[in-house]
């Protein structure tokens, strides 16, 4: 015999549909109300016309766009290179700081001091110290390129951050996992490499991606050294036109660059949380 839903079930489902229609309606209404209030508040401001003219001028936006975009290409390259080396250096720092080998004792101290310094120093200061200090040393074999020195500053700061994130991940792996590795006859190094590290990196991937998002934004700070990145390009255009629209263009481009990474990170975090719930690991 085929299944006949009971009246009880039909009643419950009808109630659920009504509730869901009501939620949708409320969401639409509240969105419309808030959007209207915001529009009136902003356009009604006494200086709205002037702001619109100097920040949202279509003509200047179009003329600045190619310059800012080619500047952004530099940001992107700097960000990719800095991400790669920050991760590698951060990984080495984390491994050094979590190792117990007496041979690595000096490296461990060095890694700790490095982390303390570069996590504490404002990035802007690191940029000034590296960007203006290193050329001041006048080593002929050292580069004076502001792009290279800016990238180095980013790597110094972000490897300290990422090192801490990875270290936290290593320490968060259940000690029983390490013991199980050792019980199989794996050496401490093999256990770290094949058992602990893969689990640690998986745990901290969302946190590392957050650092990458930050790094992407902070790549704009190399403009303070004079590198022609998106911000510097916008600055040049703005000073020629006496209009701030190029900055808004740069801002929009930076945001559109980070959105995919942000969404990806959210999705990954969501997926990890869900699998933890399924495994009852709360």
């Amino acid at each position, binding site marked *: 015999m085929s299944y006949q839903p009971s009246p009880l079930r039909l009643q419950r489902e009808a109630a659920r549909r009504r509730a869901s229609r009501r939620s949708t309606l409320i969401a639409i209404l509240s969105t419309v109300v808030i959007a209207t209030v915001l529009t009136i508040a902003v356009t009604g401001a006494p200086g709205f016309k002037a702001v619109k003219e100097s920040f949202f001028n279509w003509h200047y936006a179009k003329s600045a766009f190619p310059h800012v975009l080619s500047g952004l290409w530099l940001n992107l390259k700097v960000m990719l290179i800095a991400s790669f080396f920050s991760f590698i250096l951060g990984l080495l720092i984390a491994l050094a700081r979590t190792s117990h080998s007496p041979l690595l004792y000096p490296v461990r101290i060095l890694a700790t001091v490095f982390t303390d310094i570069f996590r504490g120093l404002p990035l802007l200061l690191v940029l000034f110290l590296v960007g203006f200090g290193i050329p001041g040393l006048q080593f002929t074999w050292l580069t004076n390129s502001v792009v290279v020195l800016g990238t180095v500053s980013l790597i110094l700061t972000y490897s300290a951050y990422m090192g801490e994130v990875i270290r936290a991940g290593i320490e968060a792996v259940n000690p029983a996992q390490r013991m199980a590795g*050792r*019980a*199989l*006859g*794996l*050496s401490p190094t093999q256990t770290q490499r094949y058992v602990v590290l893969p689990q640690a990196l*998986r745990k901290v991937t969302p946190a590392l991606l957050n650092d990458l998002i930050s790094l992407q934004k902070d790549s704009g700070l190399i403009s303070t050294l004079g590198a022609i990145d998106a911000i510097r390009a916008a600055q040049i255009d703005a000073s020629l036109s006496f209009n701030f629209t190029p900055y808004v263009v740069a801002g929009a481009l930076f945001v559109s660059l980070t959105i995919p990474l942000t969404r990806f990170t959210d999705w990954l975090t969501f997926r990890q949380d869900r699998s933890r719930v*399924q*495994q009852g690991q709360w």
Partner: protein
Amino acid sequence: MVTMAESMLDIINVRKSYGDELVLHDISVSLAEHEVKVLIGASGSGKSTLLRTLNLLEAIDDGQILLAGTDITAVGVNPDKVRAQIGSVFQSFNLFPHLNVLQNITLAPRKVHGVSKEAAEANAMELLQRFGLADKAKQYPDLLSGGQQQRVAILRALITKPKVLLLDEVTSALDPILIAEVLSLIAELKAEGMTIMIATHEMGFAKRVADHVLFLHHGKILEAGTPADILENPRTTELSDFLGALRDAGRL
């Protein structure tokens, strides 16, 4: 009955403390080749500590441990080399969650024993086949039942052909049907001649499979004998109390 051959493991006057607490009190036990020895005793009596000293995960304070006649507690012994000859499985399923079943099982053969990937996998598949787990080879541990996880953990310990298998309460996190799965695997290993030391609260299993039972109490071996001796004719009040408590809990 398999005939008892030479001594595989000799524990001689082993003493171990944590701080002021004496956890192993001059323990002396021998495990013959092909023998299955069951450790019983209340929680905190020192069963896990004893098993962990045997594969050198805990250092002993005094005494000696011989593996097939060689002192593995001597100065200068490489513990990794010793552990490579001993299989151990603990209570919680310590499979590696980022590796699938096949990768879990082949990790030690490949990285510790230098077996090629192909040979290790062929070997692992044969083992999985034999114990009805072949269809799980590509699965990750969190998708397996507790009993399957524990059986995989035992196979992972077995694949390198250890001289001795140490099992520490491998069934205590499982429900009765899964317990039966794991115990029948262990019984099969005994039939194949594996040398096993196992801490367990499954007295029925001890009765069927053990050659000898040791009763541990506050770090001392209070009684030792055949399953019948120990389970039916306790001589000390401590053992009678322990068995009484198990009976009350419906586990005997």
